């Protein structure tokens, strides 16, 4: 490294790799249900597709996390998308392709993907 510009380039790249450790108050949070039920129905593939697709698109402000079984095992694999200031949207019956679809449409364009939305009793999940 022989210049300020090179230092800045390495710094920005390294920042991206460490994004996951920062407190992200205004981040979009995608939470994949990873109970035994979800995992059995392929939640890990969904998770990996989400990680891969958000990284490919450079979506730095998306936090991908996991939660336990929400009690609707039949609708697994499930994931919740929470955009700052908006109600949570629950998606169900996911697979890797549908997960990529959600990244492209919901996370990038803010468009709720109605085809995969599941209504949970008592939840604020009206789409």
């Amino acid at each position, binding site marked *: 490294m*022989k210049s300020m510009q090179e230092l800045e380039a390495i710094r920005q790249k390294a920042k991206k790799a*460490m994004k996951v450790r920062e407190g992200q108050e205004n981040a979009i949070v995608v939470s994949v249900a990873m109970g*035994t039920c979800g995992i059995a129905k392929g939640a890990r593939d969904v998770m990996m597709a989400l*990680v891969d697709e958000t990284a490919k698109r450079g979506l730095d402000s998306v936090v991908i996390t996991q939660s336990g*079984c929400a009690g609707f095992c039949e609708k697994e694999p499930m994931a919740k998308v929470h955009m700052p200031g908006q109600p949570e949207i629950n998606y169900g019956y996911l697979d890797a392709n549908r997960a990529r679809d959600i990244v492209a449409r919901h996370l990038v364009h803010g468009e709720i993907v109605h085809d995969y939305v599941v209504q949970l009793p008592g939840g604020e999940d009206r789409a």
Partner: protein
Amino acid sequence: MSIHRSHILVCSGSNCTLRASVPVRMALRAAIADQGLDKEFKVIETGCFGLCQEGPIMVIYPEGIHYCGVQPDDIDEIVETHLKKGRVVNRLLYRGEAEQEVTLPSTPFYQRQHRVVLRNVGAVDPENIEESLARDGYQGLAKALDTMSPRDVVQTMLDSGLQGRGGAGFPAGRKWDFTLRASGEPKYVVCNADEGEPGTSKDRLILEGDPHAVIEGMAIAGYAVGASQGFIYIRGEYQLSLQRFRKAVEQAREYGLLGSDILGSGFSFNVEVRSGAGAYVCGEETALLNSLEGRRGEPRYKPPFPANEGLWGKPTLINNVETLANAAPILMHGAQWYRSLGSEDCPGTKVFTLSGDVANRGLIEVPMGITLREIVEDIGGGIPGGRQFKMAQIGGTSGGCIPAEHLDIPIDIPHLDDVGASLGSGALLIVDDSHCMVDLSKTFLHFFAHESCGQCTPCREGTMLMRKLVDGIAAGSGTRKDLELLERITATMRKASLCGLGQTAPTPVLTALRYFSDEYEAHIDSGRCISGACGVAVGGMKS
């Protein structure tokens, strides 16, 4: 660096390492690889989180969940429950005094702290320079090289009011200024990492947790005073610090942040790592310089000061680890920002190793001017076991003992001076009412009698005489005359000793005599000791 959705930071500071954090990390890596989760989860070794007694500590991001006291046997459950199913392993969460599970950053232990020097300790992998770069590592150096003259850098350090963090508290900017003005070539920068004060391990944990902050500080200092060679003298017992620091120097060279023509500025700087060999006195700056030159580690007469005649007789800037680690943040955020932290007489923050009879023991960084009570009660979580606070010894074995009546004293140089103590290097030993002051004094004095280098008479003879007198008092054979003699010896040592060792060795005894004279008198007059640690009868005291 590839992108992982979750980072797991495992503490690999000295204290967690003692509590088996290495097997924990190995078991975790193995389990993650075994389950095919290594694309999702990245395991990172990091520096001290500060709450050493709860170690080994790990943090899982992005959730930010801290687990305490993790052992290799816990790994299967963490992988199965947390990593695979996203459920928190409640039994490993930190439990505060109320025995409730709380997240670590929400505890007063962290809330009352202000991390400037420790900004990256516990947040980055110290063996990966890119993690340091991502958190603004070397930005202070880049700013100095790009936009400031050496004189500007020295002026900023002067304006910041930073005082040396190695013990004496001399204004750092003035040392930089003297060295810049000194004539003679070449000039040197030396980092004093011979942290020998019993009860202090803050420099160790800084070196282990964020070595690049110290390298950056040394390079900034080199640019400011006109030196192109730096030396760091690390205490020989600090094997992990030595190993991490050497690795960090190699990486900095590889990235062109040390070496010739750094960042195309024309400025060249190198750092050489030297190991100490176990003498306490080598933490004294001129003894350290002698040791670096390959001579016997004995202090030199001052003046001339190292700024004019230091290493090999050349102008030398010698600063403590913590002092140098402050340089980059000061340059990046400015002297005014630094002055906004801390108290008027003592700007900035101070790193302490908190130990002894207090609930939360570990590594803390607090703004100067915080009261002793806030440290003991809020950060330290109070005195455990229903005991009472008796005294705090600040600054290490050569520091003063502060009694309960001064619990509300603000921690900064002038206020500590008022009560006969000094800020010292960064130890804070809390002692409860089950301990005897004569017994404690005995321990301190045995240490000094052992560590005095023997060069000057007041220290060589004084430390031995003090030990003999206090041993006698503890054994029940002391007289009132011994107390008078003790006072005379201490006065001579403070005035006539050659270096800081002999000048400060009497401090704990003087403050013990000042605030706890009744205990000394009880040993002498009625042969009673509250703790039974001394060779006299166990008995109560007037107070």
